[in-house]
């Protein structure tokens, strides 16, 4: 059974068709990278998959459970309680972190597991400290987000998402708000997670990173999937759009 299955997703913003019939599946342990020029609908796709945005039409299934179902050309969402449970299957790492500024690093990580998932405080604290160690931030547990660099903040936000024990983790351009010298530390963390077989869906502009870390790559343009497959397949694609997109990156 697939962790995530999205079929024929359509989404418009006031008449502008942003997603035109997108389908994808994510298997347990898989790393899916989504690439494409800006404005192609990558964030919208992620926002629809994480239900921050409601799609107009399509099916959305988590672990085989139907979150949304296409009924006569319209997406019909499941009951709120069911959606809430399914939301627990995934986490999202934002481009601009969205840490809670009034909470310390440790509280940022611990608050939701304790308050929302009602897990034991000591268990959660142990887990949070282990995650911070993994992120190389053991000394920052009591710091506040404003005292951290962008790269450190992004690592905290990854730890915050992981503390919820998600089955799949989404990333929306996790490095694009960072100075170039800080992107490396985030990519390293994601590679480590991939090595541990964490299931991930990553929107990224880092082509060589996508190639290294992903099992499957989707290239999107203007709301459609132009090319997809293994990294080798996509990067050696003869497709003209794909070629020109990759060409731009080679020139950079």
């Amino acid at each position: 059974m697939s962790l995530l299955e999205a079929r024929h997703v359509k989404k418009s913003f006031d008449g502008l068709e942003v997603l035109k019939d997108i389908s994808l599946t994510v298997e347990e342990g898989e790393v899916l990278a989504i690439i494409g020029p800006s404005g192609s609908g990558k964030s919208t796709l992620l926002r629809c998959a994480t239900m921050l945005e409601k799609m107009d039409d399509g099916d959305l299934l988590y672990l085989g459970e139907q979150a949304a179902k296409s009924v006569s050309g319209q997406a019909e969402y499941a009951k709120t309680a069911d959606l809430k449970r399914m939301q627990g299957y995934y986490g999202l790492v934002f481009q601009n972190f969205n840490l809670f500024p009034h909470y310390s690093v440790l509280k940022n990580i611990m608050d939701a597991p304790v308050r929302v998932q009602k897990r034991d405080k000591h268990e959660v604290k142990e887990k949070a400290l282990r995650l911070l160690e993994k992120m190389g931030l053991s000394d920052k547990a009591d710091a506040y987000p404003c005292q951290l660099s962008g790269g450190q903040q992004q690592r905290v936000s990854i730890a915050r998402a992981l503390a919820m024990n998600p089955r799949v983790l989404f990333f929306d351009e996790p490095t694009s708000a960072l100075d170039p010298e800080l992107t490396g530390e985030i990519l390293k963390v994601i590679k480590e997670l991939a090595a541990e077989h964490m299931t991930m869906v990553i929107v990224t502009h880092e082509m060589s990173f996508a190639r290294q870390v992903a099992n499957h790559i989707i290239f999107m343009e203007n709301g459609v999937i132009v090319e997809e497959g293994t990294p080798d397949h996509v990067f050696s694609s003869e497709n003209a759009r794909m070629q020109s997109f990759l060409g731009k990156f080679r020139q950079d």
Partner: protein
Amino acid sequence: MDLLSIVSQLGSGMLVSVEIFFCTLLFSLPLGLLVAFARMSKVKPIQWLAKLYISVMRGTPLMLQLMVVYFGPYYIFGMRISTSYRIIAVMIGFAVNYAAYFAEIYRGGIESMPVGQYEAAKMLGYSKPQTFIHIIFPQVVKRILPSITNEVITLVKDTSLAFVLAVAEMFTLAKQIAAAQTSMVPFIAAAVFYYLFNLLVAVIMEKIEEHMNYYR
């Protein structure tokens, strides 16, 4: 009459002023939040009602509002009004007036919150009330504290408006004593009182702001 006896006569007025001040804050701060919610409601009639309320409260003199609250029950409903209702009318008038100002401050603060905070909370499974209480509101308080301080300082001075209903607060007494003694001293004493009261308010609000400066 010496300064000491003037001050001691004004003493009971001070207490009344302080009482009006605290009661107003106690009621108008929560009421203002409710009005802010109504003002931001997706239900249009509720939104309009809140808008009308805010615009009337801010668009007419507080002194007039106090008189309406006090005399209204008699002129509109023919109810008998007792003198003990005066202080209550003052508190009601102040609370509903200040609630309108606080509502707009809350609204400004709430609307200034980045949508990313709501989205992060949603992704972590916080319910809407949890999101507001634990994530949004504490940050809003920090943002609006300077505006709240302004209103609170105005309130200290506005308590003197209670004189229109002859409530024996500081200013009412100062006027009476000044008239009886044909002296400026009671007014000067009153001015010093308001000034010191506000100085204290400013110091306390500054302490609270400092206290919240542990994050940006």
